[in-house]
């Protein structure tokens, strides 16, 4: 039988939650990321589809740019494995605290640029809400494990009024959203192994 992984943090001694409750919260958060994987993928596809050329071109593949509070989630396997639970949770929390601000900004811009596309607006609104929910769950896990929040970095949405720049920025945000959801899902799988239900 596989032994559970060793958690690199003791459960918070002053916290009232049992290890089982923490494990359930991690499992639930993992389920939330699975739920968001589908919707973040759909958002990115729909976003690209509705921005016109060159966004829909098969070779359209610009390098994704990070934003304040929203770094690139991709890490080498070694770097990723080298992260502690605290670092993982802090990085995810930072990203999902910043994403609602950026997604709200994308929604505002899309309402201007693609006003009839109500489904896209709904997806952006729903994604915004899901990010808030995930941020909430991540903070709850951190609190249960006695992990302090990481350094706060304020999100700074783009102020450009150039339509292409707005669309490209929106593309980056939707892409980063999907990538961070995928990253968080993997992080939660790792954490769930250390806190089996």
């Amino acid at each position: 039988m596989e032994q559970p992984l060793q958690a690199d943090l003791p459960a918070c001694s002053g916290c009232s939650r049992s290890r089982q409750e923490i494990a359930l919260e991690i499992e639930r958060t993992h389920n939330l990321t699975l739920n968001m994987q589908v919707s973040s993928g759909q958002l990115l596809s729909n976003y690209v589809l509705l921005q016109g050329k060159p966004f829909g071109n098969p070779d359209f593949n610009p390098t994704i740019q990070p934003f304040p509070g929203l770094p690139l989630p991709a890490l080498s396997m070694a770097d990723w494995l080298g992260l502690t639970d605290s670092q993982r949770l802090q990085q995810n929390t930072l990203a999902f605290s910043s994403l609602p601000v950026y997604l709200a900004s994308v929604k505002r811009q899309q309402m201007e640029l693609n006003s009839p596309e109500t489904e896209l607006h709904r997806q952006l609104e729903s994604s915004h809400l899901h990010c808030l929910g995930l941020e909430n769950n991540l903070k709850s896990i951190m609190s249960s494990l006695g992990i302090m929040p990481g350094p706060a970095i304020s999100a700074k949405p783009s102020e450009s009024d150039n339509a292409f720049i707005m669309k490209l920025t929106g593309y980056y945000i939707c892409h980063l959203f999907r990538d961070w959801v995928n990253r968080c899902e993997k992080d939660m799988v790792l954490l769930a192994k250390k806190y089996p239900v």
Partner: protein
Amino acid sequence: MFSKWGLSAHGVYILLSIYYFGVSDGFLNMCGYIVPESPVVLSTGSNFTAFCVLKDPCPPYGRIRAEQVIWKTKTTVVPKEQYSIINETVSSVTFRDTSMLVSPLTCNILLPGDFIQNIYGIQIQQGFPPEKPTNLSCIVIQTQVTAFIQQCSWEPGKDTFLSTNYSLKSRWPNKEFPDCIPQDTNNSCTTSSVVFYVTLEVWVEAKNELGVAESDHIEFDPIKYVKPLPPHKLSLNSGEFPRILKLSWENRFNESPQELKYKIQYKTSDSTVWTEIPPEDTASLRTSFTIQELRPNTQYTIRLCYAVYSSKYWSNWSEVVGFTAEDRPSKGPALWRNIKTSDSTGNWTLRLLWKELNPSEANGIILKYEVFISGRPPLSFPTRYYTLNTTQLTLNVQSGTYDVSVTAFNKVGKSPTSVLFIPATDSKASVKNVVAFPEGGKLWVNWTAPKESVSKYIIEWHEACSNLSCTTEWQQEPGSKQRIFLKGNIEPYKCYIITVYPLYIGGQGEGKSTQAYLQQGVPANGPTVRTKKLGKFEAVLEWNSLSVEEQNGFIKNYTISYKTVTGVEKVVPVDPSKTEYLLSSLSSNTLYMVRMTAYTDSGGTTGPLFTFSTNRFGKFCI
């Protein structure tokens, strides 16, 4: 203290217009006002004081004083004990318990000539502060594939009798959601913002002019309270397999991770009892399930619902109807014979009879029967073969011993073969003590089995009828039975002749019979009596037995009633086997009236009245 009493003339005018109490000479415009101003909302049963502030002087009445004030609730004058004179121009009225206070409350002044003039009025509303809402619960209902609504309901408590606003509040630690305001109700509210796997805190706030109350806060993960749309596109496929049905469907709850559990129930379409697949077999995500151990060629109704694994709310049922494939017949037809012997030649008219298989045995549509018959030596009767789609075969044959076999076929295959041994004579042991009796609306037959092992019994029955045209019915029973009921259309008031035949391997016992009614009635007619012979002091009466159709039951006995025109009626009982009776000790040359009654267990029926006269002279000696 009264610095805030200032009222606009316009406001007062509107108020006085509303509370114009039939005063013909108009209002005393701006002659005073009441504090507090309308609308006043009071807690029912509380105490309340109102002040009437007079404007002095007030044309055209000149000086008016607080002593002149008369308070009224609607049209009733408030007792003076409740008044206080605050100063020359201010009167107050106090109610210790407002439950009896009827709106509006008016300030009036008594003018010379006992004329009461209205000054001002206020509208008073009474009610209660809201009670704490209780039993708050929520359900998340899927309305479309990607759309959900969250419906929360609660008990608002007793009626406040006031306009009370309810708002459903919800939040995460990092987000307050907009309040949900119920429309046209005070005990439920629906929102469309649902995020699964995040704990939501929800509570209700009730607010009116008299107070605010808040329900307990509840916390829940919406995924645990979701009711999904029922599965759709259900289909059933039996393929070539007669005992399974594969149920396929599409789930409409596609929120990842799809942790779903299912309930699958099935029944034959003519049944009302559902059988459920064990829940442990359907406790994970799937889009098909194969139901086994079904009956061939049978219409099944199958229904399916599902729920999110952690939720207590199941979707509505979806239903589908389908057939299992045919299988070969599981049993051979019950087989019997009817023999009529020709008086002249001694030959037989042999009618072979077999029963249609019931659907659970036929396992499909029976397409044909194959019949073999062969005679045993000394008969020279080589095997004959017949293919039929009827259930009888009539043959004119020599009397003797025969072997008969019948096999039923459907499109899948053939049934086991039924065999019947027809001996030349029923030489084997018979059953004994055949009795038949009604019980529970059925006609039961009991018998004592022979000592020898019986392979099966044939029970034959037919209605007793005078014209011999009644058809014979029969049924086959296992050799272990000694008590059966007749499976057929058995009617009340009809006499059935029931015969039990034991069948052995290689022989047959003689049939033993009994008669029975499912239900006895009174005879349809009474016997028609007449004289057979007349003497001076006696008469021989005779009658015909009632036909079996008239009897409606077993005739227990008869009675004969007779009397002279002026005499007392005499009644004599008569055995039912008799058809004549001697009346003696009669008076000579006397007219007698006589009638006869036939009795069954259910009662009697009297026949027509018959009159006769005894002879004057003893002509005959009876």
